């Protein structure tokens, strides 16, 4: 039992160990310089990421409270990878920050919460993981300690998450009331689609909707994204969304098969609303962070198209897309984060003439945006189209037509940024930015991922084969 426990909870234990190491470092008397501290943490995160690929095991713990298998491990690896990239990217910002260990402790606590959430086999476990992943995030949003907007963002975040957690909890209790169990496997057998269950399901979806900022639960997103430090924004938009979507794909998806019809209708409507509203709002944004916030809302709409498919192709396309989304969105955020940390400029107009001064960064941002827009040969093309293939599998072509047209709309605002960078002239464009090697590595990983994961079919085929096993 003890060794099995070590293997099965390896990912969680690794994170916990890192948190404790940081805690001891903080408590120790010797002051560590920020640079060396950051490098140290990044090495730890790298080890953490690498460890995820070895000794993969599957099984249950604590009476099916906790479960893991190859697919869940893979999802955790994706999140680890994303966290490492974000950590590398925020080097400039954290270099001059007073509370580096605290930042990482909070960040990794949320990651730990997400891991428990993904691995949960029980509603209680799921809820605990969710809360662990949410509450530190609010503190993280406030991490630009001397900015008012940052505190404002944190406040909005904590209120909206509390509200959505309330909805989830209500849904969970109703579900418990109607099925008499918290265990997912048993819930599945007890579901019969009566009104109470449908209602609890609606509440659950609403709670999830808040977390992934699907329309109409998206209103907190833009303000929080704009106010938070860029590192936290990218974490929110990629990792925390990705985790919830993983839970939806690999946990809830199997639980609610009995009421798949209402599942489909709801996801269908939310997905259309999310795509359209996200796109329409993104059209007019000037602040780059707000712009990416709305574009990421629209992206969630596309992900929901794949989620609505209820097939192996659908689930694998969602997981695959999240991997690509990690690369693409973090590539874009990486550039914006470097620019914002060094020059403080965040507006789209500031990016006019960016190509003249920073050609390489421009290409990185352009490639990431093309990938988000779904332009080949970037991976985003494959990700998006597999989502839509899967979504069409149900025979609902209306959804696909709407999604395809939305891709054109979204292309417009991505191209607006491209146009500003490449084509517009600007007297006082952003000066030449000198980045350290850490953000450069992060950007290289993103660009490499964008260019390779699509053309090389390995990632998708692997995910598909894992999903076909269960």
């Amino acid at each position, binding site marked *: 039992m003890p060794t099995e426990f070590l293997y099965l909870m390896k990912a969680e234990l690794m994170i916990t160990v890192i948190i404790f190491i940081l805690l001891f470092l903080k408590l120790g008397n010797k002051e560590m310089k920020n640079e060396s501290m950051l490098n140290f943490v990044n090495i730890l995160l790298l080890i953490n990421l690498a460890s995820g690929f070895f000794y993969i095991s599957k099984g249950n713990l604590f009476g099916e409270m906790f479960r893991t298998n190859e697919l869940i491990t893979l999802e955790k690896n994706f999140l680890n990878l994303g966290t490492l990239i974000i950590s590398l990217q925020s080097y400039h910002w954290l270099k001059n920050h007073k509370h580096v260990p605290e930042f990482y402790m909070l960040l990794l606590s949320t990651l730990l919460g997400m891991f428990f959430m993904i691995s949960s086999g029980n509603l209680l476990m799921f809820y605990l993981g969710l809360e662990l992943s949410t509450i530190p995030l609010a503190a993280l949003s406030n991490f630009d300690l001397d900015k008012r907007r940052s505190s404002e963002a944190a406040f909005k975040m904590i209120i909206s998450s509390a509200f959505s957690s309330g909805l989830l909890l209500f849904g969970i209790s109703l579900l418990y009331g109607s099925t008499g169990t918290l265990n997912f496997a048993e819930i599945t057998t007890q579901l019969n689609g009566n009104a109470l269950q449908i209602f609890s399901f609606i509440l659950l979806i609403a709670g999830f909707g808040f977390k992934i900022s699907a329309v109409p639960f998206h209103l907190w997103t833009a303000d929080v994204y704009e106010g938070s430090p860029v590192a936290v924004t990218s974490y929110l938009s990629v990792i925390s969304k990705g985790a919830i979507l993983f839970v939806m794909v690999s946990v809830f998806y199997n639980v609610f098969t009995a009421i798949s019809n209402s599942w489909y209708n709801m996801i269908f409507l939310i997905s259309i609303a999310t795509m359209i509203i996200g796109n329409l709002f993104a059209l007019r944004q000037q602040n780059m962070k707000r712009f990416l916030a709305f574009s990421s809302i629209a992206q969630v709409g596309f992900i929901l198209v794949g989620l609505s498919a209820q097939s*192996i*192709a659908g689930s*694998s396309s969602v997981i695959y897309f999240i991997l690509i989304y990690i690369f693409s969105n973090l590539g874009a955020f990486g550039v914006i984060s470097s620019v914002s940390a060094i020059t403080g400029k965040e507006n789209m107009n500031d990016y006019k003439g960016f190509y003249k001064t920073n050609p390489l960064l421009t290409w990185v941002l352009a490639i990431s945006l*093309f990938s988000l827009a779904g*332009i*080949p*040969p970037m991976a985003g*093309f*494959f990700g998006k*189209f*597999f989502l*839509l*293939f899967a979504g*069409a*599998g149900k*025979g609902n*072509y209306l959804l*696909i*037509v709407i999604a*395809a*047209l939305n*891709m*054109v709309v979204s*292309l*417009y605002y991505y*191209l607006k940024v*491209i*146009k500003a960078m*490449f*084509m*517009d002239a600007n007297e006082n464009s952003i000066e030449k930015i000198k980045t350290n090697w850490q953000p450069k590595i992060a950007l290289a990983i993103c660009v490499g991922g964008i260019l390779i994961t699509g053309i090389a*079919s390995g990632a*998708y*085929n692997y995910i*598909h*084969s894992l999903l076909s096993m269960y």
Partner: protein
Amino acid sequence: MNLSLLIILPLLTALSILPFKDLRQVRLISLIGSFLQLILAFTLLYFYWNARSSGNTAIMLFENNYTWYAPLNINYHVGVDGISIAMILLTAFIVLAGVLVSWNVEKLSKEFFFLLLFLSVGAYGFFISLDLFTLFFFLEVAVIPKFLLIGIWGSGKKEYSAMKLALMLMGGSALVFVGLIGLYLNTNTGNGEHTFDILQIAQMNIAPQIQKVFFPFVFIGFGVFGALFPFHTWVPDGHSSAPTAASMFLAGISMKLGGYGCLRVATFLMPDAAHEYSWVIIVLASIAILYGAFATMMQTDLKYINAYSSVSHCGFVLLGIGMLTKTAITGAVMQMVSHGLMTALFFACIGMIYDRTHTRQLAQLGGLMKMMPFISTVFVIAGLCSLGLPGFSGFVAEVTVFMGSWQHADSFYRIATIVACASIVVTAVYILRAVGKAIMGPLQVAGNNPLLTDARWNEKWAASLLIIGIVAIGIAPFWLNDLIIPGTETLMKNIGKIVYR
């Protein structure tokens, strides 16, 4: 012969110019690369003839099929028939001419040549694909380079035009995508699996009611690329704002992607629907032909003249496709090749004139023949080809389309043919007017620029290359005809299955 070379070679060329900074090195590498492309295209032609003359009657030659995304049954499947080879030859010609014409691009030259070559990757990939997903992949690869080429190196209201072009073409490809998904999900390889393979789908007889739903998506989607009325509005703006080489690529290659797609995907895979909707296609194509021609008459800017005349000429392609007879479709393919060469030549000339006089307004030009005899002669040749003078490719192609169209005894088709024929008169009016005003008459140049030198060596080569193509088709059309006919026959096997009602 491995067809993937056609993708790898331009890609490698594009990548190998990245380390260099200097314009001279960059353009030299691009020139070598695009020259190798031309050689490759001719080698392909040679091998193809060898294979055909030794009795190989397979539908597609040099096929390669690799599994790409196994769970979705997506393959990288390439192969060529005569139609694709004609298109590949056209592309190779235009790429080389385009590189030659852009010899002196000072601004961001590395990026310029990179994007040109990258665009050609998309075009080659599109023409050799036999898998709908791969085909769509390459179709979209070719869109964004156009946006950047126009937006960065263009002139006039370039940002607007670039955005309009990118959005319209992406809108077109979104429609294509919906159509392709619809086709895909209604295929069945026997064990419940779906397929993207063009040759397999062609054998499958998709149910007519399904074809009727998805044919409009695919046809209109590709039609946007091929300037189908009323989705042609990106053409004038895009062409006129683009830098010379990009205009050549746009008109010469990019619009052909649309025509080829309409033919290979829409009509070939959904013949029932093609018959059902052929009257719509014919009406729209006739409108485009006439409207384009009349709109050209009103233009005063040389690039707009050529852009609108492209709408008119590309109308012949769609008209030929809509007629659905063997001769008409052969004519449509010929018109694609002919129009590609001719319009590229036109744009090259306009670019040369603009470089020297800094104006494209007809009113400010005159008597250029006195100062620039070579450019002016080329301009006249392009004009004569455009108005369909025998001896040039335009005549051959248009006559083939008309003959194919006339094979229908129905009065509707005949009227459409007559209307299309009538546009040639209008063409003659605007071509002769433009030529007469700009080339002949008293010397008149804006700003009294005395330094009107004649074409440089690179421009001469570019023009000669395209003229060789035009004349080779014009004088000896049989080789192109023989090349295309087997391909058309394959198409007709599917299209002709449906007896016309």
